[in-house]
């Protein structure tokens, strides 16, 4: 096959990073990104983009750790380069605090982030309602800058991006050899995946530039993540809620919870409210599938369902998806050479 044409559907962090990995591992491929939304209107743009993994119940821990490590290593190198500010990648230190000591004091990712250790008594005094905590340094991907930087790198590699609403993956079979499905929550309708469900997250993006450290409650519901220009305050985890409209009562709740962790936030300015639907699943759907109709086949690679952990594992799953695309190409070349006999 001369130049396999690969369509990546979806332009959030998963779609863009997957397209980049495919373009880099398969230089002969012609890769195109198709999406109805691009930054700043993707789910990724709402997320804080902090690298603290979410645990997928359906995926072996060593695999999740590998994905996280690959992502962390990749972003660490960018954060240390001249491109860091353009890419929106920066280091941030802070604390994860628990009202009750967690069962697992050492999460699987503790040796991937930097300087992980339990908080000292003196540090815990700042959080009178919490009895245990962990201090570490991790990375943050600010959006839109990170997505815009990925788009720039894609264009430099020759990958085109098109605004297009794909109603059915099959509609792409005549134009493309392989389709990569990075549609996030859109996969619920696009491929009818009943195992995929939204977990609604509302966040506040505020101006509070004196906040330099992150603070996260171990219950995952309250967090403060300082970004380049704004601090993301969160949040909510509402399973099966499809509403994209900000809720004012929730806004007040988030603000109050964050202020009790960090009182200086009372002086935060210019509060913007955003909502995103985490594309949640027991495990990330990262697998090949072959669609066929009337003897015509369309190989598909699925890469969606990252829930609350998209940023933390995106490079790991992108690399795996690119590898699966490689398998699809090999299979296509195998069958086409068989056809030649």
């Amino acid at each position: 096959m001369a130049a396999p044409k690969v369509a990546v559907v979806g332009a959030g962090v998963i779609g863009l990073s997957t397209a980049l990995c495919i373009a880099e591992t398969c230089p002969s491929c012609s890769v195109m990104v198709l999406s109805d939304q691009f930054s700043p209107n993707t789910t990724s743009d709402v997320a804080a983009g902090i690298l603290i993994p979410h645990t997928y119940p359906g995926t072996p821990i060593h695999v999740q750790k590998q994905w996280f490590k690959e992502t962390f290593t990749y972003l660490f190198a960018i954060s240390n380069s001249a491109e860091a500010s353009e890419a929106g990648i920066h280091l941030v230190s802070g604390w994860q605090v628990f009202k009750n000591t967690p069962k697992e004091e050492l999460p699987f990712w503790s040796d991937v982030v930097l300087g992980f250790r339990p908080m000292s008594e003196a540090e815990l005094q700042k959080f009178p309602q919490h009895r245990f905590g962990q201090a570490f340094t991790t990375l943050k991907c600010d959006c839109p800058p990170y997505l815009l930087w990925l788009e720039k790198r894609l264009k430099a590699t020759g990958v085109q991006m098109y605004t297009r609403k794909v109603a059915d993956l099959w509609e792409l079979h005549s134009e493309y050899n392989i389709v990569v499905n990075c549609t996030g929550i859109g996969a619920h309708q696009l491929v009818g995946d009943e195992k995929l469900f939204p977990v609604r997250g509302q966040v506040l993006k505020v101006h509070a530039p004196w906040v330099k450290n992150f603070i996260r409650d171990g219950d995952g519901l309250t967090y403060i993540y300082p970004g380049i220009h704004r601090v993301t305050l969160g949040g909510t985890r509402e399973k099966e809620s499809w509403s994209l409209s900000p809720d004012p009562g929730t806004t007040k709740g988030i603000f109050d919870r964050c202020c009790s962790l960090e009182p200086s936030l009372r002086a935060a300015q210019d509060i913007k409210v955003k909502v995103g639907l985490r594309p949640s699943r027991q495990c990330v759907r990262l697998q090949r599938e072959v669609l066929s109709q009337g003897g015509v086949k369309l190989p598909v690679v699925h890469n969606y369902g990252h829930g609350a952990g998209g940023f933390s594992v995106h490079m790991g799953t992108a690399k795996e998806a690119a590898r699966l695309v490689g398998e699809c190409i090999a299979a296509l070349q195998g069958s086409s050479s068989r056809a030649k006999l």
Partner: protein
Amino acid sequence: MRVAVIGAGVIGLSTALCIHEQYHSLVPSLEMEVYADRYTPHTTSDGAAGLWQPYLSDHGNLQETLWNKETFDYLLGHLGSPAAKEMGLFLISGYNLFTQPVPDPSWKNIVLGFRNLTPKELELFPGYSYGWFNTALMLECRSYLPWLTNRLMQRGVKFFHKKVESFQEVSGDGMDVVINCTGVHAGELQPDPELQPGRGQVIKVLAPWVKHFIITHDIESGIYNSPYVIPGSEFTVLGGIYQHGNWNEENSAQDHKTIWENCCRLLPALQKAKIVQEWSGLRPARPWVRLERETIRHGHFQAEVIHNYGHGGFGITIHWGCAMAAARLFGSILQEKLASPPQPRL
């Protein structure tokens, strides 16, 4: 009772407030006046990034270590208060980097979460093989000095824009106590060969992605002569100049080049930072802080002077401990004045 405070940097204003807070209720007749030729944003304090961090070694000066601790604890206590933002006070974490192992500093248990750097963290800083991580405080004087000024004005303290040429000038007017917080220019009021300028220059940039302070150390070059990057609430301060004995307050192109190149080598992302301002100032350097009483006699008058100057590059770090010590000296002066009846004025 009349008190004149000379100097309106972080030392002058905080000493004034500390004394007024402690003694105004005891001495309702307390009248305080502040005299300075420079006010915020033109004081030496305004140029400082505002990071709480003492020098690496206290040279056995336990007194100063205690004052540093008092300051840190005092500020930490204010972190959760509504005043924190107005004061320009916030927590910040960061790195101290070395080219060889060094002993832990006297302040390791004062700051939060002090620890050595891991090998992976050191990968971020090629050329440095050892270091510390800790969480400390920032106190930005461009906010703190106006905050102190407001508290003082609310208490009825009066401010005068004036260059005081001698102690007599202020004390001859019926002033009972003069608090000398004149920083690097203290020698003009009373010669002090121990006091020397420690000239510094900084570049202020916009680099909001930098969330940590990074202070490098070169044992040979001496303190602050090695690049440092300190992110503030609005600007990031790049520095690394310490010139002992240099009185020049003009920005030097050579120093600019040194700071810029060294800081960009340390943090490549800074190359994209926008330069907003350049500033030079004179740290009031002294082997140790001069914090003591002196009775100045001149002809027929005498005044009690409390000296509080010579805080080098750690004025913000030590200011409150010194203010409290100065307030204690004030208390003993007060005690003496109450014990002996006042002399009739001729």
